């Protein structure tokens, strides 16, 4: 068992990708041709060379990535927060200002240190330092001059302490420390959350086996042409467009926007008259009909008329086994056998002999999925036969005709009034009440044998 530690500072796997991408942006910004134009910036009375304004940064980002100014400001802010660019004015505040405030590229302190040492010692660096130095040189080749220049400046500054250089140095160091030791109240951008990767090297052979097995299976699979699959997405999105509140709005109004819960009241689980959109949705797929409590009730009524209601009762009973408590499986399977499968059962379901034999065999050792085949068979029977006929029936057509289309509440009706947000009973409360009522009913000695509900 590994001990997970919170990673503080340092390079974390998940951030490596981000750092590399940010460096790419910075490198692009420093490109001699397409990059940013650096010039002397004025800070009060001092002139700082090789700097850029916040305004320039934003303009460059907006142009390069074809994004809005707001987004460039956000992206630029990230670059400042992570220390790739540091502000020369108000160095304590790592924020990008879209104005004439001057900024500069931060060069990794290690790089400058090595460059400084190189210049001072006239090339007498230690072996490992030389290695690192040339590696860095290769990596940031076209900014090398900039680095050398910075190093030279810093050396000069330490000798002469010119004001401009001092300011630059201070700001640079300030920014560096702000990131590595953020003051309270400021986000620690190096905070990466939980240390994630666990060492799984010992499972290499197991995993390779798994991959090979999975690949072999996948090679044998039937695939559908892309053109057919992708058309499916178009059709689905189009069909559900009017039902998507974020895309098309909802009637009478979106409760989160108008503070009016009418939309939820009208679409509650059981209502006297459902909305038109809801009834329409029942025609999209059999699953939609069954998933809606009212839809299922309507369908049951229809099946009763057709004398095939036992199919839906059976399906519901099987669902109950699949998703119910493990301890009740055996008794539920027995109930199903008694009511639906046994010869002469009150609600005998018509399953093909092969499935019936398999199911009866499985019942001898009941488990959660023992009814799956039979359930699937009845499900598809209803889907192919009863469901299409239901949609063409008068029952459905009348429902559709009666359904409400709510009036849209114009926001302008209550421009200055802020509606009171009413609370609603918690599902936990209604459940407790229902359980209490049930308890009372049981206590009164009521014993419904042929349960009308499953």
């Amino acid at each position, binding site marked *: *068992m590994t001990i997970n530690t919170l990673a503080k500072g340092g390079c974390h796997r*998940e951030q490596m*990708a*981000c750092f590399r991408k940010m460096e790419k942006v910075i490198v692009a910004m420093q490109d001699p041709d397409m990059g940013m134009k650096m010039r002397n910036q004025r800070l009060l009375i001092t002139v700082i060379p090789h700097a850029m304004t916040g305004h320039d940064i934003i303009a460059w*980002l907006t142009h390069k990535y074809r994004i809005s100014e707001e*987004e460039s400001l*956000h992206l630029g802010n*990230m670059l400042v927060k992570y220390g790739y660019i540091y502000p020369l004015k108000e160095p304590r505040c790592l924020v990008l200002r879209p104005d004439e405030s001057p900024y500069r590229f931060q060069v990794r302190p290690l790089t400058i240190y090595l460059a400084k040492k190189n210049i001072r010692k006239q090339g007498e660096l230690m072996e490992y330092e030389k290695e690192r130095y040339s590696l860095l040189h290769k990596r940031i080749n076209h900014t090398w001059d900039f680095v050398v220049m910075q190093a030279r400046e810093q050396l000069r500054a330490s000798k002469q302490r010119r004001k401009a250089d001092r300011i630059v140095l201070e700001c640079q160091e300030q920014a560096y420390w702000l990131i590595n030791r953020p003051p309270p109240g400021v*986000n620690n951008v190096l905070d990466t959350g*939980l240390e*994630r*990767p*666990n060492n*799984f090297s010992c*499972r*290499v052979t197991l995993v*390779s*086996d*798994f*991959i*090979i097995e*999975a*690949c072999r299976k*996948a*090679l044998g699979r039937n*695939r*559908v*042409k*892309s053109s*057919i699959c*992708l*058309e*499916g*997405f*178009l059709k*689905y*999105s189009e069909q*559900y467009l009017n*039902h*998507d*509140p*974020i*895309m098309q709005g909802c009637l009478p109004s*979106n*409760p*989160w*926007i108008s503070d009016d819960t009418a939309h*939820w009241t009208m679409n509650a689980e059981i209502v006297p008259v459902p909305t038109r959109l809801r009834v329409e949705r029942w025609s999209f797929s059999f699953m939609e009909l069954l998933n809606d409590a009212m839809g299922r009730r309507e369908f049951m009524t229809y099946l009763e008329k057709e004398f095939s209601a036992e199919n839906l009762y059976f399906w519901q009973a099987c669902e109950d086994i699949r*998703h*119910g408590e*493990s301890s009740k499986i055996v008794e539920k399977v027995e109930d199903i056998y008694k009511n639906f499968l046994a010869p002469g059962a009150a609600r005998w379901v018509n399953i093909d002999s092969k499935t019936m034999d398999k199911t009866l065999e499985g019942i001898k050792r009941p488990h959660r*999925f023992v009814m799956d085949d039979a359930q*699937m068979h009845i499900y598809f029977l209803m889907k192919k036969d009863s469901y299409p006929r239901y949609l063409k029936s008068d029952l459905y057509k009348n429902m559709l005709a009666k359904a409400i289309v709510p009036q849209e509440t114009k926001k302008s009706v209550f421009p200055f009034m802020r509606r009171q*947000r009413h*609370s*609603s009973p*918690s*599902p*936990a409360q209604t*459940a407790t009440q229902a359980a209490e009522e049930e308890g009372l009913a049981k206590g009164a000695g009521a014993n419904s044998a042929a349960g009308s509900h499953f």
Partner: protein
Amino acid sequence: KYLSTFIKTLYSTSMIFYSCVLYIICEVPLNETLAHLKTESETLKSKLEEERAKLHDVELHQVAEKVEGLGQFVMKTRRTLKGHGNKVLCMDWCKDKRRIVSSSQDGKVIVWDAFTTNKEHAVTMPCTWVMACAYAPSGCAVACGGLDNKCSVYPLSLDKNENLAAKKKSVAMHTNYLSACSFTNSDMQILTSSGDGTCALWDVESGQLLQSFHGHAADVLCLDLAPSETGNTFVSGGCDKKANVWDMRSGQCIQSFETHESDINSVRYYPSGDAFASGSDDATCRLYDLRADREVAIYSKDSIIFGVSSVDFSLSGRLLFGGYNDYTINVWDVLKGTRVSILFGHENRVSTLRVSPDGTAFCTGSWDHTLRIWA
């Protein structure tokens, strides 16, 4: 005396020599087997890619050319939920479309009526970093877990005096942190994923392990249940950059996709169940079609540098919302592949994002300690 020491040294040196020889003999076949396995898996993988490519006759955005483009998008924060004292890590909606449960780094799990912004219940877990939480379909319980390696179920009591923690039920036990959990179609079963590289299905009542799912080579970070008719599959994503689709009955991995360049933080099914989207640290979201058995779209932009922590679809599946580590939310046109809108508001990473059950809004949780409802 010298003779005995001499014999002893001779004996020990010969033993060392012998064991060295044995070691060399055994070492070689093991390395060979590993190398052999590796080449075999690489060859099979490239063969699989070839097969997949054969049926790929058109791109999604090409098919989507005839679809109308989306207009201006205005979504704002409609509610801000303040109350957590530390980073919000996870949230889930209740089926009543207005209540939510959220969990945070300091071990607090809070149930809110997001519409009124009132807190209704609060539980303090015995561990920090509660990375997973889920609302039961009945609305009467919540499940949560994290660094305690467990998933526990708390029945929601309305008695203000009752301590919720007293009725807590420990359901799942992993050997590493719990990264995600979800109830299946009822309150009786929970699906979990963990840093120990496995997913598991549990019976809530007895705490019994019903099925376990092995196959990820590293931490599993996320999972989502399929909305299909047969309701028997789910997808998981992990640090091994893979997204796997599993059969809940048999425990077998039915399909596997590996195109991301970094950890997959979030997976979510397309509403029809024929596809799923994933969000990764490589700053892209991708769409995988299950029938075509391949990746069919990538949602990315040069200016988007930071990883995606969480994704979800709008009700019709036309929009894909992504919460990013750079504090923003990007809204994508699923069909055309373009970025429709970028939403600002959070002051730190967006760690979790879910669309409400009726699609009227979506909720985000962030490291800035707040949750926001957007509509």
